[in-house]
């Protein structure tokens, strides 16, 4: 007993011109008869791409948090700040709401995103049938909060642009911010590569045909 889906009915939609057509049989590449675009019923190589980007993000997550993101030079001396030391500074200086926000946006979110995407990809790979609706909702949440991860990068960029008093005070972006930006972009790409329809395919909610054909 399965819900009626496009794949179940043997239909494809062109992602460019929105033409609905009948899918060809066999392992062949479908082409839109109207605009000639390549048509996939699911994102091609979705899981592989997601995994590749996830692993890259995870690798860069370490230097992004270890290396300083910002070097503040002032008459009080030079200071190198990592993301975590910035959070610690905000916390000790009393602005703990800001500390919580930065910690949430810059440290927890990328990490949660990595873990959540890894969980989703694993569950699809293991053809899990458990609570597909909840997993789809998790995916939506990831998409939504992912954009907040760039907060720290933006803060550094704004400071670098604003605080430039030469000898008195000077803020420079350090290499850490590059790795951090990479992590954020890679996780965004990873979540984009992930096709949530696979959750439902794997759960067997979609009928008969091989849902994971590309």
């Amino acid at each position, binding site marked *: 007993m399965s*819900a*009626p*889906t*496009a794949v179940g*009915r*043997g*239909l*494809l939609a062109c992602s460019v011109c929105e*033409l*609905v*057509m*009948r*899918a*060809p049989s066999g*392992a*062949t*590449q*479908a*082409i*839109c*008869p*109207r605009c*000639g675009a390549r*048509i996939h019923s699911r994102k091609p*190589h979705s899981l*592989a*791409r997601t995994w*590749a*980007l996830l*692993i*890259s*993000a995870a*690798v*860069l997550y*370490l*230097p992004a948090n*270890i*290396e300083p993101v910002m070097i503040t030079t002032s*008459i*009080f*001396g030079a200071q190198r700040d990592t993301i975590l030391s910035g959070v610690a500074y905000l916390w000790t200086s009393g602005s703990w709401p800001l500390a919580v926000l930065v910690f949430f946006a810059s440290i927890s979110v990328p990490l949660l995103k990595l873990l959540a995407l890894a969980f989703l990809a694993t569950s699809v790979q293991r053809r899990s049938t458990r609570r597909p609706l909840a997993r789809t909702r998790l995916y939506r949440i990831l998409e939504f909060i992912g954009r907040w991860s760039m907060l720290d990068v933006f803060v550094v960029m704004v400071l670098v642009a604003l605080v430039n008093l030469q000898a008195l005070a000077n803020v420079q972006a350090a290499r850490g911010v590059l*790795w951090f930006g*990479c992590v954020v972009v*890679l996780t965004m790409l990873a979540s984009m*590569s992930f096709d949530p329809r696979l959750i439902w395919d794997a759960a067997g909610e979609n009928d008969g045909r091989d849902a994971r054909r590309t």
Partner: protein
Amino acid sequence: MAETPDGPEPGELPQARVVEKRRGGLPLVWIVPLVALLIGAWLAWRSISETGPAFVITFKTAEGIEAGKTKIKYKSVDVGLVESIELSRDRSKVLIHARMEKYAADYLVEDSRFWVVRPRIIGASIQGLDTLLSGSFIGMDVGSSKTERRDFSGLAEQPVVTADDPGRHFILKSDALGSIGLGSPVYFRRFPVGEVESYQLDKDGQGVMTRVFIKAPYDQYVNAETRFWEASGIDLKLNASGVSLDTESLASILVGGIAFQTRGDAKLANPAAENAEFRLFKNRETALSYEDVVAMPFAFSFKESLRGLSIGAPVDFRGIVVGEVTDIQPQFANDAIYMVAFAKVYPDRTATRQVGESARLKHGWTREQAFDELVKIGMRAQVRTGNLLTGQLYIALDVFKGAKPAKIDWDEKPPRFPTIQGSLTGVEENIATITKKLAAVPFEEIGEDLRRSLGELEQTLKSMDRLVKNLDQETRPEVSETLADLRKSLDSVERTLSQEAPLQQDLRGALREISRAAASMRTLTDYLEQHPESLIRGKPEEK
């Protein structure tokens, strides 16, 4: 996806065109994690290879030091960072765990030094002002040793001189620490050439050791003949040579200092070695006086008052201070009171100024024999006025021709040096000599001679008078007689005035005497005109 009732049937939908599926191997996207891994590996390798050695510095206190913040600087360049701070087991010290930058790993050698830089005033300059804003940092001086070391004990004070300053260290020994401090300048001919680096008590507490650093190239002026003295503040002195004010520089008045000078010909001596020891004298005068290896005690007994002769007054030989008075006592001997000045005489002070061997060594005399010889040719001690204004006296040794023969009795302790009356009494003596000479002039005889001559003259005049009277009384008839008388008179005058006449002789003698007396007076007045001071000081002895 709900089925729409009025939608077209699947059969009416167009059929997708089909192309041959591209058979890809591994998707290109796997390059991304590969690159990420490479980056990660590169960063990891970099951070491992760039991590310098960890080491420990021990300090008394961790004041101003923060873990993860405090930097280690060498020549104001960051070379390391404090990683953690902990107390030693017995809580007496603080262990600073720090890490050096990789490139500075070989700075950690046996004689490297660490100290905490805080703002302070050192010598005449203020240092570490920047730490007021940036906080303290740990200063470092890299040693020259090749032996590696990982545990250091931090210095309590910032060293004044760093190891790479060219120059030499010297150790000055003194009885007490003068008004000098760390960083006090060292002057050479009033030119700042070095600094006081440290000072400490001797191990036995008997004196103070001051370590100074003389910068190159000035360190070459320090040799075995160099004397150091405290050039601290203002030195105001009132002594036999009057008032003297001595100071090296304005800075030395404020922060104290040390000066040095080399006695004699500096070129003759080799520069002193590193860490050579010198005595630190109280002042320039004592520093530059010659090393008094041999001191001979003498007693000088005088008949006159010694008011104005103080203990420490110089014993002078024609301008060279050869000794100093150590004590003054009255002594009774032969029913008379003598004032006895005890003094130490340093005979080598005269000898070492001569180039080559002294006369004494040439003759092979002992010091005692040399003094005997000097006394034999007339050397005597005399009290003289050093300064008319202050009335200070000194003992002068000089050679007096015609002094009564004397001898030093070396068995006496201390031996008595023959003396001669002081110069003030000498003036009286001179005056007495003059009066004696004047008294010797035969004024009476001269007067008698004169009286006699005048008597004869009177007689002549009387006979002339008589002649005139006779001429008056016995007029013309007796002209011939008168003429004959006149001839007689003239004969008599002729007799009187002739060479052999007694009148003539007496007069000449008298005049001779007078001219001699006048010449003597002229010599005296001439001398007084040229040397008016001799009225007070007396006539200097003939050389």
